[in-house]
């Protein structure tokens, strides 16, 4: 029987510095791990420990993946010290991703903040690759400052490549180089022209940003069951056994981390 706790040996192909405290690792596991956007993996630093991340790369690339990691704790500190050629471990894919098949022929609004832009990059690649399947795709991204903006250059390239996709960015605090909106992400959710009642709203970001973006979506007329949230909980085993990431009757690791707002809205503690 397969051992769900065993990490697969993985080579660090490259380390890309994104911002002062965020790096992206390009990883090649010896056994390919196929994922879909929104699913997560557990990344092991040998002798240090394991932590959950959602791949930020193209799911259509099967033999390698990228994870984008903010330095916040013990494991991520060690991850930031990794170099090209180092060996790590991967387990996954774990959990459920975005159900793209349910988004067909719909209008989709993607809202991301901060580190939440990482899982959403994988989602945007999937949307771009199947852009004809969707009626409309709108992207709204926010970060604290222009220096913190993940994939800034790449998003600007998306704007040029995918003219049909309405994309706007914002920062909480601007600087002279910043030519776009200044304000929290909900400030660029005003005036969006779309069929909110039947539209799909996707939110990923720090808890506080998710909370306010969700409230905004509800104000705009989105239905509870059409809002998809990516929940950050203490996912450890990844298969609903260890008990750390429970939300009500769910485990974020096996039933999520992507949940419909309607599934979890009645539970306390979801934004904490």
């Amino acid at each position, binding site marked *: *029987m*397969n*051992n*769900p*706790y*065993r*990490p*697969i*040996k993985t080579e660090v192909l490259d380390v890309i510095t994104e911002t002062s405290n965020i790096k992206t690792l390009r990883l090649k596991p010896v056994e390919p791990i196929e994922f879909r956007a929104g699913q997560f993996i557990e990344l*092991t630093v*040998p*002798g*240090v*420990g*394991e*932590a959950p991340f959602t791949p930020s790369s193209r799911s259509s690339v099967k033999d390698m993946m990228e994870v984008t990691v*903010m330095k*916040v*704790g*013990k*494991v*991520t500190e060690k991850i930031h010290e990794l170099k090209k050629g180092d060996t790590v*471990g991967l387990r996954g894919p774990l959990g459920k991703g975005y159900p793209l098949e349910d988004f067909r022929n719909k209008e989709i609004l993607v809202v991301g903040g901060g580190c939440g832009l990482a899982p959403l990059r994988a989602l945007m690649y999937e949307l771009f690759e199947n852009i004809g399947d969707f009626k409309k795709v709108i992207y709204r991204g926010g970060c604290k400052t222009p220096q913190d903006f993940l994939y800034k250059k790449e998003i600007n390239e998306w704007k040029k490549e995918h003219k049909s996709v309405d994309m706007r960015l914002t920062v909480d605090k601007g600087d002279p180089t910043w030519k776009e909106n200044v304000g929290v992400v909900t400030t660029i959710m005003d005036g969006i022209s779309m069929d909110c009642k039947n539209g799909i709203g996707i939110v990923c970001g*720090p*808890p506080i940003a998710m909370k306010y973006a969700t409230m905004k979506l509800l104000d705009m007329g989105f239905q509870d069951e059409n809002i998809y949230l990516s929940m*950050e*909980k*203490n996912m*450890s*085993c990844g*298969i*609903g*056994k*260890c*008990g*750390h*990431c*429970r939300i*009500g*009757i769910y485990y974020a690791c*096996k039933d999520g981390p992507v949940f419909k707002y309607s599934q979890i809205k009645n539970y*306390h*503690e*979801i934004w*904490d």
Partner: protein
Amino acid sequence: MHYISNDNFFKFLDKLKNTFNVFVPVKKDKQRFYKKYDTPREDIIIGEVRAFEPAKAFFSHAREIVAEGFKNTSPQMNKKPLAIVGVKACDLKGFKVQDHVFLNHDYKDPFYIRNRENNLIISADCTSAIDTCFCLAVGVTPYPEKDFDINLSSVEGGFIAETGSEKGKATIDAHANLFESVKTRAKSQKDEQRKKVTKDVERNIKENNVPRQESLKGIIEKNFESDIWKDEARACVECGACNTVCPTCHCFLLYDEKNKENLARLRIWDSCMIKDFARVAGGANPRAKLWMRLRNRFEKKFYYFPKVADFYACTGCGRCITACPAKIDIRKVLKRLVKGE
């Protein structure tokens, strides 16, 4: 239904040793602990009440290596399967909860399966109750009715043995020479004994006003914002003893040994009462306060499990009552939740 004399019972255990690692409850002072059976001894107590430690520990080990580096090895079969003798009804219900988590629910856990399969469960009737026993309030009788291979009821000079599975039947058939037919007198002794212990537990329930499980529906939702949690958690010292001794608690921590030469991933019992249990790396903690964690413990047992598995994850064994240094008493908490004050 069969009868086995005390002498033959030890012969039976001696035979089982060939196939199984046999564990029996042994009495030390006022407590019973599981010990590996070697030779007949007087302090082996098949009846009385549950052992000090929860029997879940036989299958969900307190500390277990679940991965070694990147090696693609699946867990090795134990050399010999376990025969656990004298398991009480409360621990059988504990197995049911553990089985739900590790065997039946979405994903399977190969380590638990390895430990659990091929085992022989020889349960036994309780012949007495201690003052913390309240099994009948949560739908568990102090004598096993199902979920065993063989069940033993103490009678004069020996035991009545009933089979509850094909494996149990085959085991008795294989040692048929040690068993006899049951005399009417023994049968009525068993019935009397069961009546007596039922009365003892009922008296406990009455004296402590323990609510019946029929009244537990909705107690968590109803009291989610109640001050009961803060009040009850006041004396908690966050030791996690309630989790450790609980037959239904299953949470664990995956821990990587900090030694690059020997990359072992351990699974260790964890406690949801400890502050960092649900904390994420960024620092956010959905249950930062102790009373929230106490509430979570009850929510898991009396909201989560009934919703996903249709049972309350409490066996009425009373171990958490005895183990708690702060004297937090699950019977009292349930009583307050039912009353809502």
